[in-house]
Protein backbone atom coordinates (compact mmCIF):
# COMPACT_ATOMS: atom_id res chain seq x y z
CA UNK A 1 0.00 0.00 0.00
CA UNK A 2 1.31 3.45 -0.91
CA UNK A 3 2.11 5.69 2.06
CA UNK A 4 1.01 8.89 0.33
CA UNK A 5 -2.68 8.55 1.27
CA UNK A 6 -1.56 7.94 4.86
CA UNK A 7 0.58 11.08 4.88
CA UNK A 8 -2.36 13.02 3.41
CA UNK A 9 -4.80 11.66 5.98
CA UNK A 10 -2.52 12.54 8.92
CA UNK A 11 -1.83 16.01 7.47
CA UNK A 12 -5.56 16.57 6.99
CA UNK A 13 -6.19 15.57 10.60
CA UNK A 14 -3.51 17.97 11.81
CA UNK A 15 -5.02 20.85 9.83
CA UNK A 16 -8.62 20.02 10.80
CA UNK A 17 -7.64 19.77 14.48
CA UNK A 18 -5.87 23.11 14.44
CA UNK A 19 -8.63 24.86 12.51
CA UNK A 20 -11.16 23.67 15.10
CA UNK A 21 -9.17 25.18 17.96
CA UNK A 22 -9.37 28.96 17.70
CA UNK A 23 -6.89 29.14 20.59
CA UNK A 24 -4.32 27.44 18.35
CA UNK A 25 -4.98 29.57 15.28
CA UNK A 26 -5.50 33.08 16.58
CA UNK A 27 -2.56 33.59 19.00
CA UNK A 28 0.13 32.64 16.42
CA UNK A 29 -1.40 35.18 14.05
CA UNK A 30 -2.33 37.99 16.39
CA UNK A 31 0.27 37.99 19.20
CA UNK A 32 3.38 38.34 17.03
CA UNK A 33 1.72 41.14 15.04
CA UNK A 34 0.55 42.87 18.23
CA UNK A 35 4.06 42.62 19.72
CA UNK A 36 5.48 43.99 16.48
CA UNK A 37 3.02 46.92 16.58
CA UNK A 38 3.96 47.73 20.19
CA UNK A 39 7.70 47.53 19.41
CA UNK A 40 7.30 49.56 16.24
CA UNK A 41 5.51 52.27 18.21
CA UNK A 42 8.01 52.34 21.08
CA UNK A 43 11.24 51.84 19.18
CA UNK A 44 10.50 53.98 16.10
CA UNK A 45 13.23 56.44 17.07
CA UNK A 46 15.83 53.63 16.75
CA UNK A 47 15.76 54.28 13.03
CA UNK A 48 17.50 57.64 13.73
CA UNK A 49 20.59 55.79 14.97
CA UNK A 50 23.49 56.09 12.57
CA UNK A 51 23.88 52.82 10.66
CA UNK A 52 20.29 51.65 11.21
CA UNK A 53 19.53 49.74 8.03
CA UNK A 54 16.09 51.23 7.26
CA UNK A 55 13.97 54.24 8.06
CA UNK A 56 10.89 52.07 8.71
CA UNK A 57 11.01 50.24 12.04
CA UNK A 58 7.91 48.30 10.97
CA UNK A 59 9.80 46.91 7.98
CA UNK A 60 12.71 46.09 10.33
CA UNK A 61 10.46 44.38 12.89
CA UNK A 62 8.30 42.46 10.41
CA UNK A 63 10.84 39.63 10.41
CA UNK A 64 10.16 38.83 14.06
CA UNK A 65 6.60 37.46 13.67
CA UNK A 66 7.89 34.90 11.17
CA UNK A 67 10.06 33.29 13.84
CA UNK A 68 7.71 33.98 16.73
CA UNK A 69 4.86 32.36 14.81
CA UNK A 70 7.07 29.32 14.21
CA UNK A 71 7.66 29.06 17.96
CA UNK A 72 3.90 28.94 18.47
CA UNK A 73 3.80 26.18 15.83
CA UNK A 74 6.40 24.24 17.81
CA UNK A 75 4.30 24.42 20.91
CA UNK A 76 1.02 23.60 19.17
CA UNK A 77 2.43 20.69 17.18
CA UNK A 78 4.22 19.35 20.23
CA UNK A 79 1.22 19.69 22.52
CA UNK A 80 -1.06 17.96 19.98
CA UNK A 81 1.32 15.06 19.55
CA UNK A 82 1.91 14.74 23.29
CA UNK A 83 -1.85 14.55 23.74
CA UNK A 84 -1.93 11.66 21.27
CA UNK A 85 0.59 9.87 23.46
CA UNK A 86 -1.27 10.68 26.67
CA UNK A 87 -4.70 9.61 25.40
CA UNK A 88 -3.46 6.46 23.70
CA UNK A 89 -4.42 7.73 20.24
CA UNK A 90 -0.91 6.82 19.16
CA UNK A 91 -1.76 3.18 19.96
CA UNK A 92 -4.74 3.45 17.65
CA UNK A 93 -2.39 4.65 14.92
CA UNK A 94 0.18 1.99 15.79
CA UNK A 95 -2.45 -0.70 15.24
CA UNK A 96 -2.97 0.36 11.63
CA UNK A 97 -0.72 -0.12 8.64
CA UNK A 98 0.63 3.42 9.19
CA UNK A 99 4.40 3.66 8.83
CA UNK A 100 6.35 5.64 11.44
CA UNK A 101 7.80 8.06 8.93
CA UNK A 102 4.37 8.59 7.34
CA UNK A 103 2.97 9.67 10.71
CA UNK A 104 5.79 12.15 11.26
CA UNK A 105 5.68 13.42 7.68
CA UNK A 106 1.89 13.81 7.74
CA UNK A 107 1.94 15.60 11.06
CA UNK A 108 4.68 17.97 9.90
CA UNK A 109 2.96 18.53 6.55
CA UNK A 110 0.01 19.85 8.53
CA UNK A 111 2.31 22.12 10.54
CA UNK A 112 3.94 23.41 7.33
CA UNK A 113 0.56 24.24 5.74
CA UNK A 114 -0.40 26.21 8.84
CA UNK A 115 3.04 27.85 8.86
CA UNK A 116 2.55 29.03 5.28
CA UNK A 117 -0.86 30.46 6.21
CA UNK A 118 0.84 32.37 9.04
CA UNK A 119 3.55 33.71 6.72
CA UNK A 120 0.91 34.81 4.18
CA UNK A 121 -0.86 36.65 6.99
CA UNK A 122 2.33 38.46 8.11
CA UNK A 123 3.16 39.39 4.52
CA UNK A 124 -0.39 40.73 4.08
CA UNK A 125 -0.03 42.75 7.29
CA UNK A 126 3.28 44.15 6.00
CA UNK A 127 1.83 45.08 2.62
CA UNK A 128 -1.26 46.60 4.26
CA UNK A 129 0.90 48.80 6.52
CA UNK A 130 3.03 50.04 3.64
CA UNK A 131 6.12 47.88 4.04
CA UNK A 132 7.99 47.58 0.75
CA UNK A 133 9.62 44.21 0.11
CA UNK A 134 12.98 45.09 -1.39
CA UNK A 135 13.44 41.61 -2.90
CA UNK A 136 10.16 41.95 -4.80
CA UNK A 137 7.70 39.23 -5.73
CA UNK A 138 10.43 36.58 -5.97
CA UNK A 139 11.55 37.53 -2.46
CA UNK A 140 8.02 36.98 -1.21
CA UNK A 141 8.12 33.49 -2.71
CA UNK A 142 11.45 32.86 -0.97
CA UNK A 143 9.89 34.12 2.27
CA UNK A 144 7.08 31.60 1.86
CA UNK A 145 9.59 28.83 1.24
CA UNK A 146 11.63 29.92 4.24
CA UNK A 147 8.48 30.05 6.37
CA UNK A 148 7.72 26.49 5.30
CA UNK A 149 11.21 25.28 6.23
CA UNK A 150 11.16 27.14 9.55
CA UNK A 151 7.76 25.60 10.38
CA UNK A 152 9.05 22.16 9.43
CA UNK A 153 12.18 22.52 11.56
CA UNK A 154 10.44 23.96 14.60
CA UNK A 155 7.53 21.52 14.16
CA UNK A 156 10.01 18.62 14.17
CA UNK A 157 11.53 20.07 17.36
CA UNK A 158 8.04 20.08 18.90
CA UNK A 159 7.45 16.52 17.68
CA UNK A 160 10.72 15.36 19.24
CA UNK A 161 9.82 16.92 22.59
CA UNK A 162 6.33 15.39 22.38
CA UNK A 163 7.47 11.86 21.61
CA UNK A 164 10.36 12.10 24.04
CA UNK A 165 8.36 13.38 27.02
CA UNK A 166 4.80 12.36 26.12
CA UNK A 167 3.64 15.33 28.14
CA UNK A 168 1.88 18.41 26.82
CA UNK A 169 2.57 20.20 30.11
CA UNK A 170 6.33 19.72 29.69
CA UNK A 171 6.20 21.20 26.22
CA UNK A 172 4.24 24.20 27.41
CA UNK A 173 6.75 24.65 30.22
CA UNK A 174 9.57 24.66 27.66
CA UNK A 175 7.87 27.34 25.58
CA UNK A 176 9.25 30.28 27.64
CA UNK A 177 12.76 28.79 27.24
CA UNK A 178 12.36 28.94 23.45
CA UNK A 179 11.15 32.51 23.80
CA UNK A 180 14.34 33.46 25.62
CA UNK A 181 16.22 32.59 22.41
CA UNK A 182 13.96 35.00 20.55
CA UNK A 183 14.46 37.86 22.98
CA UNK A 184 18.26 37.42 23.23
CA UNK A 185 18.61 37.92 19.50
CA UNK A 186 18.74 40.78 17.01
CA UNK A 187 14.94 41.02 17.03
CA UNK A 188 14.86 44.67 18.15
CA UNK A 189 18.19 46.00 16.93
CA UNK A 190 20.89 45.14 14.39
CA UNK A 191 23.68 43.25 16.17
CA UNK A 192 26.27 45.91 15.32
CA UNK A 193 24.17 48.54 17.10
CA UNK A 194 23.64 46.58 20.33
CA UNK A 195 25.60 48.55 22.93
CA UNK A 196 25.67 46.01 25.78
CA UNK A 197 28.58 43.64 25.18
CA UNK A 198 27.16 40.45 26.72
CA UNK A 199 23.89 40.94 24.85
CA UNK A 200 25.66 41.48 21.53
CA UNK A 201 27.79 38.37 22.07
CA UNK A 202 24.73 36.31 23.07
CA UNK A 203 22.81 37.57 20.04
CA UNK A 204 25.78 36.72 17.80
CA UNK A 205 25.95 33.18 19.19
CA UNK A 206 22.19 32.74 18.96
CA UNK A 207 21.06 31.03 15.70
CA UNK A 208 17.67 32.73 15.98
CA UNK A 209 19.43 36.04 15.14
CA UNK A 210 20.45 34.62 11.75
CA UNK A 211 16.96 33.33 11.05
CA UNK A 212 15.51 36.76 11.76
CA UNK A 213 18.23 38.47 9.70
CA UNK A 214 17.55 36.16 6.76
CA UNK A 215 13.89 37.20 6.67
CA UNK A 216 14.80 40.81 7.38
CA UNK A 217 17.28 40.94 4.52
CA UNK A 218 14.59 39.94 2.03
CA UNK A 219 12.35 42.73 3.35
CA UNK A 220 14.71 45.65 3.80
CA UNK A 221 17.90 44.85 1.87
CA UNK A 222 17.00 42.83 -1.18
CA UNK A 223 19.23 39.87 -1.95
CA UNK A 224 21.92 39.38 0.71
CA UNK A 225 23.67 36.09 -0.04
CA UNK A 226 25.40 35.85 3.35
CA UNK A 227 22.24 36.49 5.34
CA UNK A 228 20.33 34.00 3.21
CA UNK A 229 23.03 31.35 3.49
CA UNK A 230 23.28 31.71 7.28
CA UNK A 231 19.49 31.83 7.74
CA UNK A 232 18.81 28.82 5.54
CA UNK A 233 21.87 27.01 6.87
CA UNK A 234 20.93 27.26 10.54
CA UNK A 235 17.30 26.35 9.96
CA UNK A 236 18.21 23.37 7.77
CA UNK A 237 20.69 22.09 10.38
CA UNK A 238 18.04 22.53 13.09
CA UNK A 239 15.52 20.75 10.87
CA UNK A 240 17.76 17.77 10.12
CA UNK A 241 18.73 17.37 13.78
CA UNK A 242 15.13 17.71 14.97
CA UNK A 243 13.83 15.28 12.35
CA UNK A 244 16.40 12.67 13.30
CA UNK A 245 15.64 13.05 16.99
CA UNK A 246 11.87 13.08 16.38
CA UNK A 247 11.88 9.96 14.23
CA UNK A 248 14.04 8.11 16.78
CA UNK A 249 11.76 9.18 19.63
CA UNK A 250 8.69 8.18 17.58
CA UNK A 251 10.11 4.72 16.91
CA UNK A 252 10.62 4.23 20.64
CA UNK A 253 7.20 5.61 21.49
CA UNK A 254 5.27 3.73 18.81
CA UNK A 255 6.32 0.32 20.07
CA UNK A 256 4.96 -2.53 18.04
CA UNK A 257 6.37 -5.81 16.90
Amino acid at each position, binding site marked *: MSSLPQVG*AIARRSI*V*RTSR*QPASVIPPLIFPVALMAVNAGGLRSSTDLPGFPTDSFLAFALAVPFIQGALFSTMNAGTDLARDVQ*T*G*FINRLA*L*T*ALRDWALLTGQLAGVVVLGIVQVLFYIAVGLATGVEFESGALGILVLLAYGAIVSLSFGALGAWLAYRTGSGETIQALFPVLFVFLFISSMNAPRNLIGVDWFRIAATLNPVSYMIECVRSLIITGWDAQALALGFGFVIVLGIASLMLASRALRMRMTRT
Partner: protein
Amino acid sequence: MEPDDNGIEVEGLVREYKKGPRAVDGIDISVAPGEIYGFLGPNGAGKSTTVHVLTTLLPPTAGTARVGGYDVVKDGPKVRGLIGVALQEAALDPLLTGRDHLRLQATLQGVRKDQRAARAEELLNRVGLADAADRKVSGYSGGMKRRLDLALALIHSPRILFLDEPTTGLDPQSRTALWEEVSLLRREDRVTVFLTTQYLEEADVLADRVGIIDQGKIVAEGTPAELKAEIGRPSVHAIPHREEDRPRIAEFLSRFGEPLATTRDVAVRLRDSLGLTDIVRAVDQDGVDIADLELRAPTLDDVFLAKTGRTLEGATEEADTAEQAKGKR
Protein backbone atom coordinates in the same frame (compact mmCIF):
# COMPACT_ATOMS: atom_id res chain seq x y z
CA MET B 1 -2.85 -23.20 12.71
CA GLU B 2 -2.65 -22.02 9.08
CA PRO B 3 -2.32 -18.35 8.13
CA ASP B 4 -5.85 -18.31 6.69
CA ASP B 5 -7.22 -19.42 10.04
CA ASN B 6 -9.10 -17.00 12.32
CA GLY B 7 -8.01 -18.54 15.56
CA ILE B 8 -5.65 -17.52 18.37
CA GLU B 9 -3.03 -19.84 19.85
CA VAL B 10 -1.01 -18.83 22.91
CA GLU B 11 1.60 -21.01 24.59
CA GLY B 12 3.50 -20.23 27.77
CA LEU B 13 3.07 -16.48 27.30
CA VAL B 14 4.98 -14.35 29.79
CA ARG B 15 5.19 -10.59 29.99
CA GLU B 16 7.31 -8.92 32.63
CA TYR B 17 7.56 -5.20 33.18
CA LYS B 18 10.76 -3.61 34.36
CA LYS B 19 10.85 -3.44 38.16
CA GLY B 20 7.42 -5.01 38.27
CA PRO B 21 5.83 -8.38 38.79
CA ARG B 22 4.95 -10.73 35.94
CA ALA B 23 1.79 -9.20 34.51
CA VAL B 24 1.24 -12.36 32.47
CA ASP B 25 2.73 -15.52 33.90
CA GLY B 26 2.90 -18.43 31.48
CA ILE B 27 -0.60 -18.60 30.05
CA ASP B 28 -1.93 -20.97 27.36
CA ILE B 29 -5.01 -20.02 25.37
CA SER B 30 -6.62 -21.53 22.32
CA VAL B 31 -9.45 -19.67 20.63
CA ALA B 32 -11.23 -21.41 17.75
CA PRO B 33 -12.20 -19.52 14.59
CA GLY B 34 -15.58 -17.82 14.97
CA GLU B 35 -15.57 -18.24 18.73
CA ILE B 36 -16.22 -15.54 21.34
CA TYR B 37 -13.63 -16.03 24.05
CA GLY B 38 -14.28 -14.19 27.30
CA PHE B 39 -11.17 -13.33 29.31
CA LEU B 40 -12.46 -12.66 32.78
CA GLY B 41 -10.57 -11.27 35.72
CA PRO B 42 -10.29 -8.39 38.18
CA ASN B 43 -8.39 -5.17 37.49
CA GLY B 44 -4.66 -5.76 37.28
CA ALA B 45 -5.06 -9.49 36.57
CA GLY B 46 -3.16 -9.30 33.26
CA LYS B 47 -6.06 -9.05 30.80
CA SER B 48 -5.01 -5.84 29.06
CA THR B 49 -1.35 -6.85 28.98
CA THR B 50 -2.37 -10.05 27.20
CA VAL B 51 -4.39 -8.04 24.68
CA HIS B 52 -1.45 -5.69 24.12
CA VAL B 53 0.82 -8.66 23.38
CA LEU B 54 -1.71 -10.37 21.10
CA THR B 55 -2.30 -7.14 19.16
CA THR B 56 1.46 -6.56 18.68
CA LEU B 57 1.64 -3.47 20.91
CA LEU B 58 3.91 -5.23 23.41
CA PRO B 59 6.51 -7.91 22.75
CA PRO B 60 6.22 -10.95 25.01
CA THR B 61 9.02 -11.70 27.47
CA ALA B 62 8.67 -15.42 26.75
CA GLY B 63 6.33 -17.86 25.06
CA THR B 64 4.63 -17.71 21.69
CA ALA B 65 1.41 -16.29 20.37
CA ARG B 66 -0.11 -16.79 16.93
CA VAL B 67 -3.05 -14.72 15.78
CA GLY B 68 -4.76 -15.74 12.57
CA GLY B 69 -1.87 -18.12 11.98
CA TYR B 70 0.79 -15.40 12.23
CA ASP B 71 3.38 -15.04 14.96
CA VAL B 72 2.81 -11.76 16.84
CA VAL B 73 6.55 -11.10 17.10
CA LYS B 74 7.77 -12.14 13.65
CA ASP B 75 4.73 -11.14 11.60
CA GLY B 76 3.51 -7.99 13.41
CA PRO B 77 2.32 -6.14 10.26
CA LYS B 78 0.43 -9.23 9.01
CA VAL B 79 -1.27 -9.67 12.39
CA ARG B 80 -2.26 -5.99 12.46
CA GLY B 81 -3.72 -6.33 8.98
CA LEU B 82 -6.23 -8.93 10.01
CA ILE B 83 -7.27 -7.81 13.48
CA GLY B 84 -9.60 -5.09 14.71
CA VAL B 85 -8.91 -3.68 18.17
CA ALA B 86 -10.89 -1.60 20.64
CA LEU B 87 -8.61 -0.96 23.59
CA GLN B 88 -9.75 -0.25 27.12
CA GLU B 89 -9.56 3.51 26.72
CA ALA B 90 -11.51 4.52 23.62
CA ALA B 91 -8.70 6.81 22.44
CA LEU B 92 -10.61 9.20 20.22
CA ASP B 93 -9.75 12.70 19.09
CA PRO B 94 -12.27 15.05 20.71
CA LEU B 95 -11.86 17.57 17.89
CA LEU B 96 -12.74 15.15 15.10
CA THR B 97 -16.23 14.01 14.21
CA GLY B 98 -17.28 10.39 14.10
CA ARG B 99 -17.12 10.48 10.31
CA ASP B 100 -13.63 12.10 10.40
CA HIS B 101 -12.43 9.22 12.57
CA LEU B 102 -13.83 6.57 10.24
CA ARG B 103 -12.38 8.30 7.18
CA LEU B 104 -8.95 8.53 8.82
CA GLN B 105 -9.02 4.95 10.03
CA ALA B 106 -10.20 3.67 6.63
CA THR B 107 -7.30 5.41 4.89
CA LEU B 108 -4.72 4.18 7.40
CA GLN B 109 -6.06 0.63 7.19
CA GLY B 110 -5.80 0.66 3.41
CA VAL B 111 -9.51 0.56 2.57
CA ARG B 112 -9.87 1.42 -1.12
CA LYS B 113 -10.65 5.10 -1.74
CA ASP B 114 -13.88 4.39 -3.63
CA GLN B 115 -15.13 2.23 -0.74
CA ARG B 116 -14.23 4.45 2.23
CA ALA B 117 -17.32 6.68 2.32
CA ALA B 118 -19.75 3.79 1.86
CA ARG B 119 -17.99 1.66 4.49
CA ALA B 120 -18.05 4.56 6.97
CA GLU B 121 -21.75 5.13 6.31
CA GLU B 122 -22.52 1.43 6.70
CA LEU B 123 -20.73 1.26 10.06
CA LEU B 124 -22.25 4.50 11.33
CA ASN B 125 -25.69 3.04 10.64
CA ARG B 126 -24.72 -0.30 12.13
CA VAL B 127 -23.62 1.18 15.47
CA GLY B 128 -26.44 3.72 15.54
CA LEU B 129 -24.32 6.84 15.12
CA ALA B 130 -25.59 8.04 11.75
CA ASP B 131 -27.33 11.07 13.28
CA ALA B 132 -24.25 12.03 15.31
CA ALA B 133 -21.73 11.31 12.54
CA ASP B 134 -20.89 14.95 11.89
CA ARG B 135 -20.71 16.01 15.52
CA LYS B 136 -17.39 16.39 17.28
CA VAL B 137 -16.55 13.42 19.51
CA SER B 138 -16.12 15.78 22.49
CA GLY B 139 -19.93 15.90 22.62
CA TYR B 140 -20.41 12.11 22.58
CA SER B 141 -21.56 10.12 25.61
CA GLY B 142 -19.47 7.22 26.90
CA GLY B 143 -21.73 4.74 25.10
CA MET B 144 -21.44 6.62 21.80
CA LYS B 145 -17.64 6.68 22.11
CA ARG B 146 -17.59 2.92 22.69
CA ARG B 147 -19.80 2.33 19.67
CA LEU B 148 -17.60 4.55 17.51
CA ASP B 149 -14.57 2.67 18.81
CA LEU B 150 -16.19 -0.59 17.73
CA ALA B 151 -16.98 0.84 14.29
CA LEU B 152 -13.34 1.95 13.94
CA ALA B 153 -12.16 -1.53 14.85
CA LEU B 154 -14.39 -2.95 12.11
CA ILE B 155 -13.57 -0.50 9.32
CA HIS B 156 -11.33 -2.92 7.39
CA SER B 157 -13.58 -5.96 7.99
CA PRO B 158 -11.15 -7.77 10.34
CA ARG B 159 -11.31 -11.53 10.82
CA ILE B 160 -10.41 -11.30 14.48
CA LEU B 161 -11.65 -8.71 16.92
CA PHE B 162 -10.06 -7.78 20.26
CA LEU B 163 -12.31 -5.92 22.68
CA ASP B 164 -10.64 -4.83 25.91
CA GLU B 165 -13.32 -4.21 28.53
CA PRO B 166 -15.67 -2.74 25.93
CA THR B 167 -18.55 -2.06 28.31
CA THR B 168 -16.74 -0.73 31.37
CA GLY B 169 -18.51 2.40 32.54
CA LEU B 170 -21.48 1.98 30.22
CA ASP B 171 -25.11 2.19 31.27
CA PRO B 172 -27.09 -1.07 31.04
CA GLN B 173 -28.83 -0.05 27.81
CA SER B 174 -25.57 0.75 26.00
CA ARG B 175 -24.05 -2.44 27.39
CA THR B 176 -26.87 -4.57 26.01
CA ALA B 177 -26.67 -2.82 22.62
CA LEU B 178 -22.96 -3.57 22.41
CA TRP B 179 -23.48 -7.20 23.38
CA GLU B 180 -26.04 -7.56 20.59
CA GLU B 181 -23.61 -6.07 18.10
CA VAL B 182 -20.80 -8.42 19.14
CA SER B 183 -23.12 -11.43 18.93
CA LEU B 184 -24.21 -10.32 15.48
CA LEU B 185 -20.62 -10.04 14.31
CA ARG B 186 -19.91 -13.60 15.29
CA ARG B 187 -23.23 -14.91 13.94
CA GLU B 188 -23.25 -13.13 10.59
CA ASP B 189 -19.60 -12.41 9.80
CA ARG B 190 -17.96 -15.34 11.64
CA VAL B 191 -15.57 -12.94 13.33
CA THR B 192 -13.47 -14.43 16.13
CA VAL B 193 -13.81 -12.26 19.24
CA PHE B 194 -11.35 -12.04 22.12
CA LEU B 195 -13.15 -10.10 24.81
CA THR B 196 -11.76 -9.08 28.18
CA THR B 197 -14.15 -8.18 30.92
CA GLN B 198 -14.47 -7.90 34.65
CA TYR B 199 -18.24 -8.39 34.44
CA LEU B 200 -19.43 -11.91 35.13
CA GLU B 201 -22.72 -11.35 33.37
CA GLU B 202 -20.94 -10.19 30.23
CA ALA B 203 -18.79 -13.29 30.06
CA ASP B 204 -21.78 -15.47 30.86
CA VAL B 205 -24.05 -13.92 28.21
CA LEU B 206 -21.55 -13.40 25.40
CA ALA B 207 -18.74 -15.89 25.58
CA ASP B 208 -18.70 -19.37 24.12
CA ARG B 209 -15.77 -20.12 26.39
CA VAL B 210 -14.31 -18.25 29.32
CA GLY B 211 -10.78 -18.07 30.63
CA ILE B 212 -10.47 -16.75 34.18
CA ILE B 213 -7.21 -14.95 34.89
CA ASP B 214 -5.89 -13.89 38.26
CA GLN B 215 -2.45 -12.48 39.06
CA GLY B 216 -1.23 -13.31 35.57
CA LYS B 217 -2.26 -16.97 35.59
CA ILE B 218 -5.27 -18.67 34.09
CA VAL B 219 -7.08 -20.32 36.97
CA ALA B 220 -9.99 -21.84 35.06
CA GLU B 221 -11.12 -22.28 31.49
CA GLY B 222 -14.17 -23.73 29.78
CA THR B 223 -17.68 -22.90 28.69
CA PRO B 224 -19.65 -20.94 31.30
CA ALA B 225 -21.83 -24.04 31.80
CA GLU B 226 -18.80 -26.32 32.28
CA LEU B 227 -17.19 -23.95 34.76
CA LYS B 228 -20.36 -23.62 36.77
CA ALA B 229 -20.88 -27.37 36.66
CA GLU B 230 -17.43 -27.78 38.23
CA ILE B 231 -18.79 -26.00 41.27
CA GLY B 232 -21.86 -28.19 40.91
CA ARG B 233 -23.92 -27.47 43.96
CA PRO B 234 -26.13 -24.43 44.38
CA SER B 235 -25.89 -22.05 47.31
CA VAL B 236 -28.56 -20.84 49.71
CA HIS B 237 -28.56 -17.21 50.79
CA ALA B 238 -30.53 -15.96 53.78
CA ILE B 239 -31.20 -12.38 54.83
CA PRO B 240 -31.93 -12.06 58.54
CA HIS B 241 -34.77 -9.88 59.79
CA ARG B 242 -32.52 -8.44 62.46
CA GLU B 243 -28.77 -7.97 62.19
CA GLU B 244 -28.22 -9.55 65.63
CA ASP B 245 -29.73 -12.81 64.30
CA ARG B 246 -26.92 -13.21 61.77
CA PRO B 247 -24.71 -15.54 63.93
CA ARG B 248 -27.67 -17.73 64.80
CA ILE B 249 -28.73 -18.03 61.16
CA ALA B 250 -25.15 -18.77 60.14
CA GLU B 251 -25.02 -21.58 62.69
CA PHE B 252 -28.41 -22.85 61.53
CA LEU B 253 -27.43 -22.86 57.85
CA SER B 254 -24.08 -24.52 58.53
CA ARG B 255 -26.05 -27.74 59.09
CA PHE B 256 -26.77 -27.79 55.35
CA GLY B 257 -23.42 -27.00 53.79
CA GLU B 258 -20.11 -25.15 54.03
CA PRO B 259 -20.35 -21.39 54.74
CA LEU B 260 -19.57 -18.87 51.98
CA ALA B 261 -17.82 -15.55 52.51
CA THR B 262 -20.43 -12.92 51.69
CA THR B 263 -21.08 -9.49 53.10
CA ARG B 264 -24.70 -8.85 52.26
CA ASP B 265 -26.28 -12.06 53.50
CA VAL B 266 -25.56 -15.39 55.17
CA ALA B 267 -24.83 -18.16 52.68
CA VAL B 268 -23.80 -21.78 52.43
CA ARG B 269 -22.89 -24.03 49.51
CA LEU B 270 -25.42 -26.88 49.81
CA ARG B 271 -24.21 -30.38 50.45
CA ASP B 272 -25.15 -32.97 47.84
CA SER B 273 -28.70 -34.30 47.94
CA LEU B 274 -30.04 -31.33 49.89
CA GLY B 275 -32.51 -28.84 48.42
CA LEU B 276 -34.29 -25.64 49.36
CA THR B 277 -37.27 -27.58 50.67
CA ASP B 278 -35.09 -29.24 53.32
CA ILE B 279 -34.06 -25.83 54.61
CA VAL B 280 -37.57 -24.36 54.47
CA ARG B 281 -38.82 -27.31 56.48
CA ALA B 282 -36.07 -26.81 59.09
CA VAL B 283 -36.70 -23.07 59.24
CA ASP B 284 -40.30 -23.80 60.01
CA GLN B 285 -39.48 -26.46 62.61
CA ASP B 286 -36.82 -24.41 64.42
CA GLY B 287 -38.73 -21.12 64.18
CA VAL B 288 -35.79 -19.30 62.61
CA ASP B 289 -36.63 -15.67 61.77
CA ILE B 290 -35.51 -15.06 58.16
CA ALA B 291 -36.59 -12.13 55.95
CA ASP B 292 -35.64 -13.76 52.67
CA LEU B 293 -34.29 -17.12 51.55
CA GLU B 294 -32.93 -17.72 48.08
CA LEU B 295 -31.50 -20.68 46.19
CA ARG B 296 -28.83 -19.64 43.67
CA ALA B 297 -27.33 -21.67 40.87
CA PRO B 298 -23.51 -21.46 40.73
CA THR B 299 -22.20 -18.33 38.98
CA LEU B 300 -18.84 -17.51 37.46
CA ASP B 301 -18.15 -15.55 40.63
CA ASP B 302 -18.50 -18.82 42.52
CA VAL B 303 -15.99 -20.32 40.10
CA PHE B 304 -13.61 -17.41 40.75
CA LEU B 305 -14.13 -17.76 44.48
CA ALA B 306 -13.50 -21.51 44.36
CA LYS B 307 -10.31 -21.05 42.34
CA THR B 308 -8.81 -18.01 44.07
CA GLY B 309 -10.44 -17.81 47.48
CA ARG B 310 -11.73 -14.33 46.69
CA THR B 311 -14.82 -12.93 45.00
CA LEU B 312 -14.26 -11.14 41.72
CA GLU B 313 -15.68 -7.94 43.18
CA GLY B 314 -13.39 -8.20 46.21
CA ALA B 315 -10.37 -8.85 44.00
CA THR B 316 -11.21 -5.80 41.89
CA GLU B 317 -11.51 -3.64 45.01
CA GLU B 318 -8.16 -4.99 46.25
CA ALA B 319 -6.56 -4.13 42.93
CA ASP B 320 -8.10 -0.65 42.96
CA THR B 321 -6.87 -0.03 46.52
CA ALA B 322 -3.36 -1.20 45.60
CA GLU B 323 -3.43 1.07 42.55
CA GLN B 324 -4.49 4.06 44.67
CA ALA B 325 -1.78 3.33 47.24
CA LYS B 326 0.78 3.17 44.42
CA GLY B 327 -0.48 6.53 43.15
CA LYS B 328 -0.07 8.14 46.59
CA ARG B 329 3.51 6.93 47.01
